[in-house]
């Protein structure tokens, strides 16, 4: 295990990407920063630029408009980085999977530009903050 991975496990900085969420997942993501969950005690910080990020928290069903932008954000993120599909929408398309605006699930969009991407899934509509923390812990332990 390299020094970088050792540090990454203890300080994953996250960037929040909304690719078409109903906003409920986003609210739950922000919940992570509140005193009740306080993910800063695990070293997680919400950053404003994908260039500073180690993890992308992708929420929502990936729309046709958002898919190329999601790819762009992913290429702008320095590797190694983890993609978290937060919510049923991001994981599979959820209740919107038959809609005209739906492109593909987030993992397929990401795999299109990087077949080796590290992708973690946190299902739920919306997932509880506890589930997100559990997902992050599980994903980081596999690195």
């Amino acid at each position, binding site marked *: 295990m390299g020094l970088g991975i050792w540090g990454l496990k203890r300080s994953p900085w996250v960037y929040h990407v909304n690719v078409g969420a109903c906003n409920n997942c986003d609210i739950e993501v922000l919940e992570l920063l509140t005193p009740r969950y306080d993910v800063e005690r695990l*070293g997680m910080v919400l950053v404003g630029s994908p260039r500073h990020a180690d993890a992308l928290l992708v929420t929502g069903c990936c729309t046709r408009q958002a898919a190329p932008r999601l790819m762009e954000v992913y290429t702008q993120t320095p590797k*190694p980085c983890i993609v978290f599909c937060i919510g049923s929408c991001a994981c599979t398309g959820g209740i919107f999977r038959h809609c005209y605006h739906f492109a593909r699930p987030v993992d397929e969009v990401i795999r299109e530009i990087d077949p080796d991407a590290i992708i973690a899934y946190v299902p739920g509509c919306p997932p509880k903050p506890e589930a997100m923390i559990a997902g992050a812990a599980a994903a980081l332990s596999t690195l």
Partner: protein
Amino acid sequence: MGAIGIFLAAAVGTLVIGMVASWVDRKVTARVQYRVGPPLFQPVYDIAKLLGKETLLPERAKGRGFLLAPVVGFAAAGVGAAIVWHANIRPAEGFVGDLIVLLYVLTIPAIAVIYGALASGSPHATFGASREMKLLMSYELPLVMAVLVPVVQVVKGGGGATFSIGQLVTFQQTSGWALFSLSGVIATAVALLCIQAKLTLVPFDLPEAETELMGGTHLEYSGPPLAMIKLTRFLLLAVSPVFLATLFVGGLGDAASGWSWLALAGKFVVFLVLVVLIRNTNPRLQVRKAVRFFWFGMAPLAAGALVLAWLGY
């Protein structure tokens, strides 16, 4: 010990202090917001992680300047640390103008930040750079005037005209701290607020402005260069309180005695906690208001303190 040895010892030592200081900053901020806050070794984890990451070069960036700027800033902060510590530990050995050199050297990190941001070719970073420039021009004048107050006090106290930090410290050891006078109190307050702006902490964090510029000046940096920027921050966070303690409350004094080191640690903590508390209890100022605050608020105050010091108060 040669000059390089002094530089390395000061840079590494200050870096460790700076990491602890930045942890204190984050921890106190978290506690103020009823959170738990990060563990003690968080700054180490952050740096280790950043060093292991990829360096991305923006398409429109001027690569060499973009990557060189953080290194220049870090080196300047390290030299500043070396000057401050050397003047404290061996006050008799400093050279005549080290106070002036120190003021210049502590400006270089800000200029490096501006240069790197402009070289990155990002509109957000350019905005941040222009704000940083305005901020630099507004706080530099009151800071220099406030720093001149102890110098004037030495002149009036019969210590002779000097710009050597070592002599300022020795004078304060014999005739009392610069803080113990009306002019000293005003100058310390002004210098503290200028240092707040130098560290670009709230309420003067305009160049970074997480919520509007998303990191501003260092928006485009990733991996090792970002680590360099963070390390520069740690250095400045450690040097600035020591700088204030040296000029206004007597610095280290007797380097051989443990008590004076303990006293210096106490002064350091007091200034650091003041900085953190100001950061946590104020909203961000607009550019216009920040410039007005320094030019029409702090600068006349500092000038008044200079006059008072000249009159002997």
